């Protein structure tokens, strides 16, 4: 019973952390039709920002500063690497995203010297508590609530503000919304800003559970979050969240079983099954191709 509870708890918190990354993927994909391969690395860099900033500043400065820097990074990546390729074939943009991911990883290796950096202890989040005889960290409990709150705020933003309306319009039809006077570039920047901010928060929650960060520690969570986004139906925010919780839960269950080496394999197998059976995901809209 205790074992099941501990697996459930870790699954829930993992799911929440993936959800925050997955939203970044889903928003960008919904608008640009681009798998932002660099998103997982933005997530990793956000963790590194926190490591360095918290050693220089007190926490109440470091935390907002980390979010600001992450947002700036996301914004800069979009402007530098994706905007010049807006009219290029989709494959070029994807290759550019892979290039950015490569660059971020190498930069991180250079700055950290390739050594694992230990993540700072955040007050409250890193404190441990006992639920039903299972000892865990506060972050496990806080994550799902924080995720739900953030997702609620985000859906409010998308459904009830002007920027949100513009985002929906751009996601629906790129060119027509341009004709309607929507400034495409600022909308796209906005999606990257939101995505990066959520990735920043996600990295804070995720890395609190892990002792250290290495330059490659963003790649796999990024891919898993992407799978979650596809699973839930890419372009849909509730879909991404539900998908992320399912992926997080199944990963936690498999990690606790004798087949732990297959946890990533299972995630990808799930992806392939869903792509073959229902390519639009759980909540995705059906798209018809026009010739």
């Amino acid at each position, binding site marked *: 019973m205790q074992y099941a509870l501990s697996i459930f708890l870790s699954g829930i918190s993992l799911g929440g952390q993936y959800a925050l990354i997955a939203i970044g993927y889903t928003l960008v994909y919904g608008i640009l*039709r*681009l*798998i932002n391969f660099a998103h997982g690395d933005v997530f990793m860099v956000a963790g590194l920002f926190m490591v360095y900033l918290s050693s220089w500043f007190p926490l109440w400065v470091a935390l907002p500063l980390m979010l600001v820097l992450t947002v700036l990074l996301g914004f800069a990546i979009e402007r*530098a*690497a994706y905007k*010049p*390729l807006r009219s*290029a074939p*989709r*494959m*070029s943009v*994807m*290759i*550019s995203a*892979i*290039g*950015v*991911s*490569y*660059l971020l990883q*190498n*930069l991180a*290796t*250079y700055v950290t*010297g*390739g050594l694992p950096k230990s993540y700072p202890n955040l007050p409250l989040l890193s404190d441990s508590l006992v639920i039903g005889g299972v000892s865990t960290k506060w972050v496990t409990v806080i994550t799902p609530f924080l995720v739900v709150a953030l997702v609620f705020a985000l859906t409010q933003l998308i459904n009830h503000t002007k920027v949100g309306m513009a985002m929906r319009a751009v996601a629906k039809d790129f060119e027509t919304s341009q004709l309607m006077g929507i400034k495409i570039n600022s909308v796209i920047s906005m999606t990257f800003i939101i995505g990066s901010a959520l990735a920043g928060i996600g990295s804070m929650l995720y890395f609190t559970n892990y002792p250290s960060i290495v330059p490659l520690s963003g*790649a796999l969570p990024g*891919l898993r979050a*992407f*799978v979650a986004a*596809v699973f839930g139906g890419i372009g849909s925010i509730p879909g991404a969240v539900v998908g992320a919780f399912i992926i997080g839960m199944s990963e936690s269950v498999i990690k606790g079983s004798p087949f732990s*080496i*297959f946890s*990533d*394999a299972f*995630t*990808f*197998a799930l*992806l*392939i099954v869903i*792509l*073959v059976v229902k*390519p639009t995901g759980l909540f995705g809209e059906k798209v018809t191709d026009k*010739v």
Partner: protein
Amino acid sequence: MNEKKSKKGAFIALVCVAVLLALTIVLENTLDPTKNIMLFTVLKKGAVYALVASSMNLLNGFTGLFSLGQAGFMLLGAYTYAILTIPTDTRSAVYYLYGGCAINFSLPELFGGGAAGLILGVLIALILAGCVAAAVAWLIGLPVLRLKSDYLAIATLGFAEIIRAVFQWDKLGPVTNGANALKGFPTFSSFNIKGGLRLSTFVAFLLAAVCIGVILLLINSSYGRAFKAIREDEVAAEAMGINLSRHKRLSFCISSFFAGVGGGMFAMFATQAQAKTFTTAMTYEILLIVVIGGIGSISGSCIASFLYLACSEWWLRFLDTEVVLKSGFKVPLLRNGFRMVVFSIIIMVVVLFFRKGIMGDKELPDLFRARKNAKVKGGEGNG
């Protein structure tokens, strides 16, 4: 007229390849390999990567299927090759954790050992490596090839990860040696004749050249034209009577076959095969080579793979060492890891500003033809 020209072109190409192969023999036997380790590393690894990049180009550049599974197929090839060629008496040492290997024969020994056994055994093992990769590709292709562009990319990437996990599984230990490396099989250096000619680089080049030649022949055949038609417009190609699923599957299997052979050659180069080397990062590396060389140009892929490896392993090495000038001035930024930063910035510049890469979609002979033909501007697409 045209046919004559192409025959002449093929003849010239053959002569060029022969000269190149002769050059590698001369080079390896005049220069001391122990003093020029870097050069020969780049040459051998470059040959392997040229083959893998060409196979990826066949799929991504010529058929327009954006697949990121290359490392997975290389892994299959490397393991097949290694398992089939480790000498029987070293097997117990390699598989010491699992108390010996489940497969107890070695192809070079089956063919009687010695030079002939080595050549035949390695050749057949490489072909089988390709076949295993192609067979798995066929299976994977059944569900995956129905997907479009980025979904296909992520699904193939996922399959590569699944394959990697399966090969590291403990239960398969007696065959795959679990997460440990397979070693002791014939490598490129096994082809050096003792006290005589050194042939290791030559063998790498010869194998790569033959495989790339086959890929080129395929691209110039009716199948190749069908692939290009699919790349340009699937719907139009289908309307022209091209069987989409059949050609896509064919392209996927052939590409994986050569990736498998390339994987086997990579194992020969690295002198060991271990699942953890065949990561997604490796696929990305190969993809970047294809992009730098030009998507849709086999000769571009070959040139780019040598350039890429020479830069990343050799020419840019100096960026990794700290330099203090005589005046005591320490050159800033130079530190371990800086090489890869500079390198990835160069790659980003190519991706962003020279999207065509070195060759665009032209092959090497096209450039000469363009120069002869006054109407066409020469050197187009030279990034």
